C-alpha cells in the first residue's frame, strides 16, 4: 500500500440519509414532547432510518477495509477521529459531574445560608432549610425518597465493568497473538458482562422508582443521579452493541494483528465508559 496516495472516497450517500434520519428523530421527539400525535411515528421512522444508515455505512467501511483500500495513513486518520470523539464525550460527562459538584458544594449550602450576612437572604423564601446531601431542595420537590446506597448492586456493577475491561484486553491480546479462540471468548465475555451491567442497572432503577420514591423528579439529588447514571447506562448499551458488531466481525475473521481499527476503537470506547463508571461510583454513590 503506497503511503503517498491517500484514499479519497468519492460520493457518499449514507451521510445525507443519516442526517435526514437524525433530523426526523429529533423533530419527532420534539413534537412528541409537545404532545402532538405524529411525534412518535416520526421518531420511530427517523430512528429506523438512522439505524439503517449506521449499518450501511459501517458495513461499507468494513468491506473497503477488508479489500485493502486503506493505507496506514487512513488508519491514523480514523484513530485520531475516534480519540477526539472520545474527548468530546469526556467533556459531555464533565458537564454533569460539574453540575453535581456545584450543587453539592455551592448551591445547596448557599440555600442553607452559607455565606449569608446578618440578612439571611436565603431564608426569605424557605425558612427552615438546612443544607445536607442528598437533598431534594427546600421545596422538597418530588416528596420523600431514600438515597441509593453504594454497596449492593452498584458495587456488583463496578466489579462487572472492571472485569469486562480485563476480558476486553484479554481478547485484544488474543487478536495480537492470533489466538482466535481467545479473541472470540474474550469478546463474548465482554459483551455478556456489558449487558449484565445494563440489566442490573434496570433492576436498580426499578427499585428506585417503586420502592425508594427516588425518581428523576426527586429534586437535585434525583436529577443528578438519574442524569449521570442514565447517560452512562446509555453509553454502556451503545458500547456493548459496538462490541457485538466487533465480535461478529472477529468471528468472520476480519481482523489482523496489524490492522484492526474497529476493534481498537471499540476497546477505547469501552475503557472510556469504564472510567466514567468509576467516577460515578465514587462521586454519585460513595461520597
Amino acid at each position, binding site marked *: 500500500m503506497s503511503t503517498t496516495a491517500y484514499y479519497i472516497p468519492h460520493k457518499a450517500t449514507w451521510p445525507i440519509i443519516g442526517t435526514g434520519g437524525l433530523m426526523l428523530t429529533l423533530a419527532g421527539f420534539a413534537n412528541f414532547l409537545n404532545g402532538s400525535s405524529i411525534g412518535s411515528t416520526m421518531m420511530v421512522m427517523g430512528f429506523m432510518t438512522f439505524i439503517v444508515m449506521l449499518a450501511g455505512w459501517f458495513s461499507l467501511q468494513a468491506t473497503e477495509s477488508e479489500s485493502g483500500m486503506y493505507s496506514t495513513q487512513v488508519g491514523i486518520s480514523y484513530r485520531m477521529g475516534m480519540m477526539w470523539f472520545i474527548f468530546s464525550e469526556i467533556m459531555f460527562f464533565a458537564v454533569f459531574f460539574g453540575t453535581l459538584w456545584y450543587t453539592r458544594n455551592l*448551591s445547596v449550602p448557599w440555600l442553607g445560608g452559607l455565606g449569608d450576612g446578618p440578612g439571611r437572604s436565603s431564608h426569605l*423564601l424557605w425558612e427552615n432549610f438546612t443544607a445536607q446531601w442528598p437533598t431534594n431542595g427546600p421545596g422538597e420537590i418530588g416528596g420523600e425518597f431514600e438515597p441509593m446506597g453504594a454497596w449492593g448492586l452498584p458495587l456488583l456493577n463496578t466489579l462487572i465493568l472492571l472485569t469486562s475491561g480485563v476480558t476486553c484486553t484479554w481478547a485484544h491480546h488474543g487478536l495480537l497473538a492470533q489466538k482466535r479462540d481467545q479473541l472470540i471468548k474474550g469478546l463474548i465475555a465482554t459483551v455478556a458482562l456489558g449487558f449484565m451491567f445494563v440489566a442490573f442497572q434496570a433492576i436498580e432503577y426499578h427499585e428506585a422508582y417503586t420502592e425508594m420514591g427516588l425518581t*428523576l423528579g426527586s429534586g437535585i439529588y434525583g436529577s443528578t443521579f438519574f442524569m449521570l447514571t442514565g447517560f452512562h447506562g446509555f453509553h454502556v448499551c451503545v458500547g456493548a452493541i459496538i462490541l457485538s458488531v466487533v465480535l461478529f466481525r472477529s468471528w468472520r475473521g476480519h481482523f489482523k494483528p496489524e490492522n484492526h481499527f474497529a476493534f481498537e476503537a471499540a476497546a477505547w470506547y469501552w475503557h472510556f465508559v469504564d472510567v466514567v463508571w468509576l467516577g460515578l461510583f465514587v462521586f454519585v454513590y460513595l461520597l
Partner: protein
Amino acid sequence: MSAVVTEHDDHHEHDHDHGPSKGLLRWLITTNHKDIGTLYLLFALAMFFVGGAMALVIRAELFEPGLQFVQPQFFNSMTTMHALVMVFGAVMPAFVGLANWMIPMMIGAPDMALPRMNNMSFWLLVAGVLMLASTLFMEGGAPASGWTLYPPLVLQTGAALPFAIFSVHLLGISSIMGAINIIATIFNMRAPAMTLMKMPLFVWTWLITAFLLIAIMPVFAGAVTMLLTDRFFGTSFFDAAGGGDPVLYQHIFWFFGHPEVYVMILPTFGVASTIIPVFARKPLFGYSSMVYATAAIAFLSFIVWAHHMFTVGMPIAGELYFMYATMLIAIPTGVKVFNWTATMWKGSMTFETPMLFSIAFVVLFTMGGFTGLMMSVAPSDFQYHDTYFIVAHFHYTLVPASIFILMAAGYFWLPKWTGHMYDEKIGKLHFWLSAISVNILFFPQHFLGLAGMPRRIPDYAVQFADWNMVSSIGAFIFGFSQLLFLWIVVKTIKGGTGEVVTDEVWEDASKHGLEWTLPSPPPYHTFTTPPEIVPTEHF
C-alpha cells in the same frame, strides 16, 4: 524560496470515478473538500442575509422611541434569532468553509482526512439551522430569551423550546464532526516538508479553534439537555426549590460561551495574518509569537467565563479572580495587534480590497478589545452590564472584525477559487460604504450604553432617541451595502471582469503559501502526491 511545480493530473490509482456527479445530486453526496467548502460558504452567505434582515427589523423598531412595527415578544425573538443565526449559521460555517477550501491546499493534502464525515457535518448544519428557523412559525413564537437561553425565562418558550434545543444538538454534532476532521487533516495530512512551525497561521489558528470546538460544544449540548429535562421531565437542575440553581446554567453556558466567541475570532486572526503579509510584501512579523499568542488566548478563554456574570452575584474572590484573569487576555491579543502593525511597517503596501478590509479589521478590532478591557473591570462592569455598551463591544469584535475578515477572505481567494477577477472598483466601494456605516451603526451604541440604555428592549426613554436614530441609519446603509458583495460574488463566479488571473493572483503571493502555486481555479483534485518543497512564512 521558490514555488514548487506540482502535478495536477487527473489520473489515479483507484478505479473510482473522479469527476463530480451531475446536477443537484453532486452537492448532496459530494465528499470533495472544495465542493463542501463552497457549500459552507454559500450557505453562510445566505444566512448572513437572513440574520441581517432580522437585525434590520430590530433597528427599524429602535429607529424611534415607542412601539412602531413589532410586538415586544417578537422583538425579543428577533434579537435571539439574529444572534443564533449569525453565530451558528453565518460566521462559524463561513470559517469552516474557508477551512475546507484552504487547509488541504495550504498543507499540500489531497483532501480532508475524513471526507464522508465532512459531507455529514455540512448537512447536519443545514438540518440544525432549518430546525432553528422553523421555530419562527410555531405556537408561542421563536425563543425570545436572548441567545444565551437563560432559565427560568427560556423555559417559558412555547412549542419552540424542544426544537430550539434539538437544533443546538444538531449544530453541536455538526461542529464537533467538522472540528475532528480539521484536526485529523492537519495532524495527519501535511506534506512531509510542511512541519508544524512552517504551517500558515490560518492552519494554526484553525487547529486551535478545532480543539476549542470539541471541548465546548458538548458542554453547550449538556446545558440545553438539562433545560429540556427541567421543562419536560421534572428535573430541578436550574430550580432552587429542588436544590438546583439558575445561576448554574449561566456558569455552564459561559464556560461554553466565552471560548465560543474565540471560535469566531481565532480563524479571523488567521486570515488576517495570511492577507496582511501579501499586500505588505513582507513576511509576517513574529510568526512564532503569533502561534504562541493564539495558544495562550485559547487557554485563557477557558478560565475567564464568569466575566459575563459579574452582576449576578458571586463571592468577592470570584469577582476578583475573573477580573484579573480576563485582563490577561489583552496581553496575547496585544501581541497580535503589534505583529500585524509591525508587518505593515515599512512594507511596500498596496491597498486592494482584501487589504483595506484587513487594515480596517486591525483598527476596529482593537476598539472592541479596548471596550472589552473596560468591561473586565468588575466594578465598572456593574454599570456597563446588559446595556448597549455590551452590544457595541461585541459588535466591534464581530462585525468589523470577523465579518470584515470574511469579506477580505472572499476578495482575496475568489480569484483563486473561480479563476476570475472581481471588480476592484465595486469592491472598494463596498469597503468604504461598509467601513463608514459600521461605525455610524455601532459607535453611538457606546454612548447609549454608558447613558444607561438597556439591551434587548423594544422601546426606550426619549433621551436615547437621537443616537438610536443615527445607529439605525448606519444599520440600513450597512445592510444594503452588503448587497454589493452579493453582486460581486455572483458576478465573479460567472466570469468576473474577464481579466486573466494568474496562478499567483497577487504579486509574489506564491512566496507566502502553497495554494498560490496551484492553477486558478485549482483542479477538482489537488496534490494527489504531496508537494516536495513548501514556501515558509519566514522566507
